[in-house]
């Protein structure tokens, strides 16, 4: 109970601080919409030889975008933490009896709210562009996206607390981002990829998430890829959350 209370306090407080910089949030929200507007028109003219028809394209592309959103925004969330590390804010929190897990989770929740808004906005815009998918699937899918988000945020926090440098966090995020995205089949299905890429993708947790997300969007709720995707990302998210908390406990020690 005490833990929930503390998570709530940290969450509301972080949200309040973030809302004092609304431009950052607004730009962040517009980002995925821009991608959609720039990418979707290309799908309209897919050659007839493609694995799916142009009409299906938006239905395949949007779940991928939703998964992609999580690493692209969340892997960078540690940068803000480096700033707080440097200006003494985190140190000051650490001399209070507040639970370390509550601090990490409360801050992560704040970043997750932004991610959720991005996701909802993305789906809404895709809808106007012809997205026709299962509503319950979307809701569960957004939940899955949040779990991926928590995984990415926690990793980013841990990088921040260990490296204590904005540039280092940004570099790591960039280095991880491209293989995570390209080897997940989220832009186009992996069935189109050569054999070696498919093997490499087996080691990419996001590949499972993308599969689960596609199944959700098409309403294939009995497909085991959904359960697999949830279990894997949840396990990794919990693991990374404890990693971040441990790093916070030790930061500057």
């Amino acid at each position: 109970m005490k833990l929930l209370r503390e998570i709530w306090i940290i969450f509301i407080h972080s949200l309040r601080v973030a809302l004092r910089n609304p431009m950052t949030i607004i730009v962040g929200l517009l980002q995925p919409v821009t991608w959609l507007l720039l990418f979707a028109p290309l799908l309209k003219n897919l050659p007839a030889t493609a694995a799916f028809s142009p009409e299906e394209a938006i239905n395949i592309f949007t779940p991928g975008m939703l998964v992609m959103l999580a690493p692209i925004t969340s892997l960078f969330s540690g940068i803000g933490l480096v700033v707080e590390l440097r200006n003494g804010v985190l140190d000051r929190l650490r001399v209070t009896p507040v639970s370390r897990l509550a601090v990490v989770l409360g801050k992560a929740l704040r970043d997750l709210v932004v991610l959720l808004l991005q996701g909802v906005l993305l789906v809404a815009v895709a809808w106007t562009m012809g997205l026709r998918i299962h509503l319950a699937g979307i809701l569960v899918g957004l939940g899955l996206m949040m779990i991926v988000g928590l995984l990415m945020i926690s990793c980013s926090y841990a990088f921040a607390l260990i490296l204590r440098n904005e540039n280092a966090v940004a570099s790591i995020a960039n280095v991880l981002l491209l293989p995570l995205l390209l080897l997940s089949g989220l832009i186009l299905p992996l069935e189109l990829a050569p054999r070696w890429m498919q093997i490499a993708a087996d080691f990419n947790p996001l590949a499972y998430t993308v599969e689960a997300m596609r199944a959700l969007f098409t309403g294939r709720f009995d497909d085991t890829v959904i359960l697999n995707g949830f279990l894997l990302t949840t396990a990794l998210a919990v693991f990374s959350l404890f990693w971040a908390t441990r790093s916070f406990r030790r930061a500057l020690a």
Partner: protein
Amino acid sequence: MPAISARGLTRAFGERVAVDNLTFDIAHGEVFGFLGPNGAGKTTTVRMLTGLIAPTSGACTVAGYELGFDNQRIRRAVGVLTETPGLYDKLSAEQNLLFYAAIYELDSRTAREQVQHYLRMMDLWDRREHLVGTFSKGMRQKLAIARALLHNPQIVFLDEPTAGLDPEAANVVRDVIRSLRGEGRTIFLTSHNLHEVDQLCDRVAIFRERLLRLDTPANLRAGLFDTQHLIEFAGAAEPWLATVRALPFVREASVEDRVLVISLQEPASQKPALIRALVEAGAEVQNVQDRQYSLEEVYLQLIRDGATAGLKKEMS
């Protein structure tokens, strides 16, 4: 039981020892000055005592709790002004404090009362709705001190509260510390400013990597150097040198610039006898003055000695 009791507290960063074998006791209600130059290891000590970093070796109790075993209880019992205040610039003064009040589990009524009390005490009540980003350095420091006090801790750590403040702001902060002292709180005050600890503290530890001296400000002055009596005569001073040296309780006597400089075994009680002896011998004493060394001279001497001792240790 002392408020803080450290035994052999040591912290190394890699090869570099920042705090070496620090031992002291601080009584409840004591204002304890921890004085040392930049890089002496003051912040490292505060960070150990508040459970932010673990000591490499040694033990310590704070508020009766064992450091490293009961850190959560210690954190509840102490208030801390960290080296960098860590305030939220985009929030108002009041919001900054209310957030911490919530973290310390004050119910909302108590929180509002405490916040009001300390904002008034710090003379910031009228500015409570202003963003902290618009505050001067002195105001920020006062707000950070208020934040350290919200949960009524009996032990307060203040890490260089006046560093980087202009003299006026520093004085305001010192007044605040005086009033905290009046409330009977135990205060651990680090500083590199002698006059500050001299004015504010019951006892002062002079520290540079290790404890060089620990005593009351008065004893520190008296302990390292004698108090000297300077006696001026109507005529030359030299003739009276022999007279004075013949007195059994005179430790040292010399002449500097026509003035007789004398050290006594017990300055307070023997000074009248010294003067009487001179007058009885026919001297026309014109002026008697005491020369006390300033705490600054004591401090600089100790820091120099400490540095050379450290050097010797490294060479051997």
